[in-house]
């Protein structure tokens, strides 16, 4: 038997595990009869295509939005981790306007 590979649970994430009856045409994961969403897709793939007819697709969509927002709570203090290497390169010590400014580190971002 091939077990259903759809993730269930909100806090305790686990595979569904019931007997699969089909493979999701989009991602190939095994899906049981209970988890077959619109178009024979798995709930995640159905949600990604805005097809919320099946309750577990709606749940998958809600969870994705929630997880994104939650990442923000955890990332609040590191919000700027969205700065990539390209952004950061301009702030390496060698990139300052005036090399003479470096010896006692002008940490202040603004001056009163």
């Amino acid at each position: 038997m091939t077990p259903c590979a759809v993730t269930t649970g909100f806090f305790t994430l686990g595979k569904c595990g019931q007997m699969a009856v089909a493979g999701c045409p989009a991602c190939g994961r095994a899906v049981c009869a209970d988890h077959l969403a619109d178009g024979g897709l798995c709930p995640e793939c159905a949600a990604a295509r805005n097809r919320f007819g099946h309750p577990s697709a709606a749940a998958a969509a809600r969870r994705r939005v929630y997880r994104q927002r939650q990442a923000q709570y955890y990332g609040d203090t590191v919000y700027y981790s969205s700065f990539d290497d390209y952004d950061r390169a301009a702030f390496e010590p060698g990139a300052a306007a005036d090399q003479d400014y470096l010896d006692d580190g002008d940490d202040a971002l603004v001056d009163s």
Partner: protein
Amino acid sequence: MHRAAYLAFDRFPSAKGSAVHIRHMAAELFDRYGGGLLCVLGGGELPAYQREGAVEIVRFTDVVPNLLDRAGAFSRWAADRLAPHRDTLEICHVRDPWGALPALSTGARLVYEANGLPSIELPYHWPLAAPSTLAKIRELEEHCLQEADAVVVPSRVILKAVADRGAEPDRVHLVPNGADPVPADVPRPPTAPGRYVIYVGALQPWQGVDVLLRAFARLADLTDLTLVVCSSVSPARARPLRRLAERLGVRIRWEHQLPHADVAAWLAHAELSVAPLTAGPRNLDQGCSPIKVWESMAAGTAVVASDLPVIREVLGDHGRLVPPDRPAELARAIRVLLEYPDACRDLGERARRHVEDGFTWKHARARLAGVYDRVEAH
């Protein structure tokens, strides 16, 4: 357990104007909330931890070379410092996004004191910063300003910049900087030259010190006159300007990183104080409330300054305005004022009274207290 915290991505204490500002604003906050936690940058000889009565000072001392990384590390560090006080913390007062982010995550009320905006000031020091990077930084500012319960600004110019970033108008409050009155009989600094014109402050490009040096080169015939530059930064960082002064043959005296308490005497005994700010976006779009101008006024010394909205707000008609970035005009204004010492003294006197009547730090603190009242009532 503290009820209040003040966070600044600035070294404190230091010879810079920001340090004066932090001292007064934090004092108001901590007086009101029976002490509190001050999170600032350390370095040099400053201790990482210090306790003064009910105020705890903690300093960020990690060496992180990249500025963005350093700012991020400061935020994470500050979040950890705030965490133990989460249950009791009622209010956080910050000066920049790097302090605002950890403050916001505590759920306490946030007062954001916007003296400057990194998205405007950073490119001066970091010219390689891409527009897309500055846009991200601006986004960060907008996020913090919009989340703040109150935004405190020192000038109308920055008030507009803050409003452009989505801060709600009824939450933005004007609290101009100030200066403490200087006693009329403050003794002359023993090493002061005979007659001198003074510049006090930092040496960033927008301060226009190069314009002042070029203007002074045109006053070479006034052989008894010296230019005194009280630099809040070290000699090494003044190197480019020192080289320029040498090339121009300016009679100049450098005083580096004087204790703030000594500056007043230097100001009080100067013939004139000059604030030659340039007309760049930093001064035009962002604005400031230059402490050097307030302190010159409080010392009763006439001020010659660039004609910019931010300066007009401070100086009103109690000083002499000249077009920015024009050494010849600045030189002319200095020469004319020096020829009429009575008028000059009168200008200084009026400026002093103007400060004493409404713009001492005591007044600034009272205005800030009003902001806290409103935040608490909300």
